């Protein structure tokens, strides 16, 4: 049992270290990564909408048909739930949420 605990603890340490290094590396580029959906101008809105629809079909459409659009605050909860349930990436989640609340 102790042997197993040692292996699990080592895995835990490895995962933690990877996450810390990964997160630190992301800090430098996070502004760029997060800015793309947020800084949408009027000219970008259409492109983002199309991209959001494509991400929706690619991610959500794999399991179920497209539901009706719900009010934004409900949709924010549903998308957060599906982010966890279907392991949707952060970028996809933002674009899908944007598309589903427009």
């Amino acid at each position, binding site marked *: 049992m102790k042997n197993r605990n*040692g292996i699990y603890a080592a895995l835990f340490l490895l995962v933690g270290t990877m996450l*810390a290094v990964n*997160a630190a590396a992301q800090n430098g580029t*996070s502004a760029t990564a997060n800015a793309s959906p947020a800084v949408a101008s009027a000219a970008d809105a259409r492109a983002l909408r199309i991209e959001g629809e494509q991400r929706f079909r*690619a991610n959500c459409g794999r*399991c179920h048909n497209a539901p009706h659009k719900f009010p934004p605050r409900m949709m*924010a909860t549903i998308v957060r739930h599906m982010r966890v349930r279907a392991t949707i990436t952060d970028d996809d989640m933002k674009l899908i949420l944007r598309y589903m609340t427009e």
Partner: protein
Amino acid sequence: MNKTSPSTRLWTARCPMFSWMLAVPGFLAILLGTACAPAQAQTDEAKPIPILTGGAALLSNVKDGQPQVLTVAAPVLLVPLGDRFLIETRSKMQDIFERSDAAGWYGATSTQGLDYLQADYIANRYVTVTVGRFLTPFGMFNERMLPFWIRCLQNTPLIYPIATGSSDGAMLRGGISSGKANINYALYFSTLSTNAVLKSDRTAGGRIGMFLPGKRIEVGASFQQLLQQDRSRTVGMHFAWQPKAIPMNLRSEYARSGMKGSGIWIESDYRLSQIPHARKMEVVSRAQKYRVGKLASADAVNLGLPAADTFEMDFGFNYYLRDGMKATTSYGRQFSTAKDSNIWTAGMSYRFVVPLGPKDMR
């Protein structure tokens, strides 16, 4: 099966605190990663509110001449807290009406269960930490396809009881996008619980998947190690493809367990959205095969597995009445070394979504 390196064995034998010495820095590293990582960009988006959702179904099936009627309700409660937390739970209430003998009255059996009650913490873009009772991340059917309003055929695959169900413990999961491919993962540890509601096995495992958005292909592999009883190991693979040219989904799963046997299923559903007057219709087919493991027949049946080697073909037809509501019917033929049989199903399923809280919040 239980091999460990000599050095690890030596260290853990000499120093009982070795596990903690590794685990504590690991935990701190995760916290550091969380603190350093960019926060969720939800400040400019609508604030989420609690909602009650879920599904309900009325189903009828006839297997080998034995009719059965099921009513199922599976409410899901979602409570978001701040920008990073989500509390979610799903329970299931099911009534089965069937005759104990061919000419007798119908009797009802009621069952209730808690599928999950979990707290999710979205640590950063790539990691979500989940604690509590959660659906075991093995393959794709258990987590994504199980709700009645989602699944295309009402019968679960033959291999579904292998390595699925619910687990009590902690899980790390998330997704990483690299442009042409999305990588998703889940790693978990579950503790033993003999409580009737929170029943779970002591297991550790995980799943990793890759999704190619351009080709709409998903492939993944799952692993589970039982840390009690026979300490058996289970592996699985899954595949999904959604061609762009036609409204079709193709899915497949394979699982192999030392004790519970092995099997594969492949399913296709085709939405007739390109045909006028048939846009709300969907045709489904599934082929599946199961090969028994080392379990005794009675134990296999208790788990929901076939008692003998089985091959099954199913054909279904669904009609979407409106969003979240569909009528479903199917026919299947099961070929088993024990006995061949026909399986008929028909029913209705419905998905509901209700906002909670004061009206001005919604």
